[in-house]
């Protein structure tokens, strides 16, 4: 789970800027409650992604409150696309082992 936290955070920020609790709520909502985050772990992760230039942040007004909001940078969007490709390749490889619906080619020779 921890290894995929960066990708999850980048993905929920793709539509637009969010603050910390809204990011947590978005991850839980998208996963249908299946992913239970220790919510405290996302704050240092957000700082690290900002340090790497994948996110940028600013204090914005959210209703009557002031919250630190994060948004993707261009580098963040590229990183998200890379994470998606890597995950797709991974699940395809695992899926083809777990569910061998088509016979493997190239190994019989």
């Amino acid at each position, binding site marked *: 789970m921890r290894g995929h936290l960066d990708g999850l955070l980048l993905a929920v920020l793709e539509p637009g800027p969010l603050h910390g*609790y809204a990011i947590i709520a978005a991850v839980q909502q998208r996963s249908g409650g299946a992913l239970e985050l*220790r*919510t405290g*772990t996302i*704050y240092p992760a957000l*700082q690290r992604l900002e340090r790497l*230039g994948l996110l940028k942040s600013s204090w914005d007004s959210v209703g009557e409150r002031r919250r*630190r909001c994060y948004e993707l940078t261009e580098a963040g969007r590229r990183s998200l696309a890379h994470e998606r490709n890597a995950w797709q390749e991974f699940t395809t490889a695992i899926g083809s082992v777990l569910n061998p619906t088509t016979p493997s080619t190239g190994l019989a020779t």
Partner: protein
Amino acid sequence: MSTGVGMETSIGAAASGKRRPAVPSDPIDAYVAALADSLRGPSRTKSRLVAEIRDGLDDAVSAHTRAGVPYERAAELAVRDFGSPDHLAPTFQYELTIAQARRTARAAALTVPLAVACWLLIWTASHDTATWQLPRTTSLLTVHLVAVAAVASVLAAATLAATGRLARWLPTPHRLPLAVAWTGTAASIAMAIAALVLVTLSVVVTNWPLAVAAGALAAASHAVVASSARTCRQCARLPVN
């Protein structure tokens, strides 16, 4: 409930030290105080992090109370979901330690132009009078100061690169913050020596106001770098993950 016990332990430890902060009665206040008390790092970065933690917990409590949960129970749930301070502190500390290392690296990098300026002043001083020549040991000392500053500059540049965008592709060396802390300490000592030498030389050189000004600048640089390096050493000693 286990989180509450861990929290009381941390607060108790904090309260048993020399400083005896009042234990907040609100569970969210107590949690934030316990976590903040265990962290070291640049004050602005730490303040921002603690403010975000506080905001996140307040939002979580609000979400629970809107669903009809009483405040005390809502605070308990928010704290439980957040994770115990003992468990989270090393993760938070890692980012603060990196931030402090970067701050110390930037401060140490500033010593290079100062050291070069000192060298030029001393070199000029050795030639501005025919009757007085700079002692050979002072020249060697100056070369040594420039060498320390040059090493600090190279490590500072490498640190800023390795902990910035390059860290997307390269792992950050585990001992880098400690190396930066001790390099910063060495640079701060070099600046203190430079300040003493320049103030001493101001007695014998013709352009003494410039020597005094450069000495004051070196002393100010020493204060900034020494303070940052000290905090960096404290950060580097704390557990991170």
